[in-house]
């Protein structure tokens, strides 16, 4: 009985680990697809549906949460993840900036200036709020 329980625990941990790999590849594929779609509009999404991609992402996240909770690994994982957050953030900022700058290509100069000023204002407000909460 104990043996069976142990095997089940190992199996669930295995699934949990594999799901992380699936999630990584899923996110990697989605980012590549979105980047390609942003550079060449209406060329790639004829084969894929964005709604299905997002639905799949939620399904994977749900399963990871489910198995993580059963094996109580979520809390340990979170500690590890906080350390890596800054590295991930840099990567995300680079990708997001590239996509945002690319999406400005069709804008006229005045809406572009207005968007930039508005974005700076939001960023400044966000910076103020977060620095206050840290103090």
């Amino acid at each position, binding site marked *: 009985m104990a043996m069976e329980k142990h095997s089940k625990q190992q199996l669930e941990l295995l699934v949990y680990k594999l799901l992380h790999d699936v999630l990584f590849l899923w996110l990697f594929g989605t980012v590549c697809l979105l980047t390609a779609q942003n550079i060449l*509009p209406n060329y790639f999404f004829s084969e894929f549906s964005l709604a299905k991609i997002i639905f799949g992402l939620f399904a994977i996240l749900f399963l990871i949460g489910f198995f993580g909770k059963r094996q109580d690994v979520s809390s340990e994982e979170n500690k590890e993840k906080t350390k890596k957050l800054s590295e991930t953030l840099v990567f995300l900022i680079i990708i997001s900036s590239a996509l945002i700058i690319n999406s400005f290509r069709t804008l006229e100069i005045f809406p572009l200036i207005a968007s930039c000023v508005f974005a700076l204002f939001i960023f400044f407000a966000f910076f103020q709020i977060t620095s206050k909460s840290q103090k």
Partner: protein
Amino acid sequence: MFNPTKNIVLEPVWQKIYFVGRVAILIFFLLVVLYFLKNTLFPSEKFALDFNNQKIEESLLGYEDVSSLEKIFSAYSKDNFSFANFKITAKKNQPNLTDKEVLLRKTYSAFAYPLSDQLATFPDRTLLQNNNDFFLVSNGKIRKFSSFKTLEALGYSQDNFQKITDEEIGYMEKGEEITDTQNYPDNSLFLIDGTYYELLVGALRPFVSEKAFLSHCEKNQALVKDDDFLKKYSINQDNLIGFANGTLLSFDIGVFLVEEGKVVPFNNPETFLALGYNWDDIISANEEEIGLYQRDKVFSISRPHPSGTVFQDQDSGKYYLISGKDKKEIRGENIQRIYLKRKPVLVNEKSLSFDISCKLEKKLWPFNSYGCQMPTATLEKITGKDYQFKLNSNSTFEISQVNIIFSREINWLNMRDIFSDIKQRLLGSYGYGETL
């Protein structure tokens, strides 16, 4: 590969399974990427017609029952392909179709209309001069001015007439001579206070605009008259004359085709180009001009060219005019000039012959299904959007379903086309180059 859960260590046996699982997931991911790239860069196009559950007119695959023994299926695409797979599923207890020949051609379906015995002639309203004789084309017939004096008495001069050859005059049906110097014959044109009019059954019909007038006629065909002339005839203001059939109009962000008193909006730029039209031929219309017409359903790629379309055979240089469900040859330089106000749609005479064929073979699944594949790369040089498959049978049979799949071979030539397309789109989306 990046491992987000390396702090969770499994037992050695399970660790091995995990390793195998990761490799399997990675291989699956790579296969999906390859499948995606293949389908995106070398896309196939599928057409199906289900006779049991689908209305033929709603299907993407056109169907024409030429006779009980001959059937034509038309698939519409602007693209070129390497292969076409044809599959037909017959209903139960039907004759065996093995070894029956399926023939294929690529053309424009309007160009494939039967050639009329009659030649295209000068349209109504045209003023013509042949040696010392002067004519007006009225109600489809050529009417001679009885003398030069009659012509002068009506206010015409030699400059209003277009010179034509003896041969061209021979194509026309002759009508009554014009002898009346007090009243103008039908289809006479006038320019009064900046508005063009046509005389029809004793009433003047105004053209909606000068652009509309010029889509039918030349400026010098209209007699200039003063306002007093309007008192002589009633004016039919409710029935304005619009643009000639086949004229391309633009309004707001849409492009329209004038067809039998209606305007047909194009569903996308690809359809416009697939029909062989030219962006330079589009006339910018205003609200009044476009408001004259009722809007028809969108012009999709499956719709044939309308009446008034002129085709030019690139091989022989001959011109053809679409008139209803017939095509008429336009012979004679002066007649051609009248119909070539817009650039003709380029075609190839050889597109009418069914040069590609394959023989049907029995398929394992579904039952009663037969199929074959034919190479279509040679059709690339032929202009057209309608891939027409002809199936001849010695006996009548009932069809359940037809499926046609066009595919592209993965080769350097196709790859080059794809990269060229991507380059064009890339340059277009950043504002360097032509956008569709």
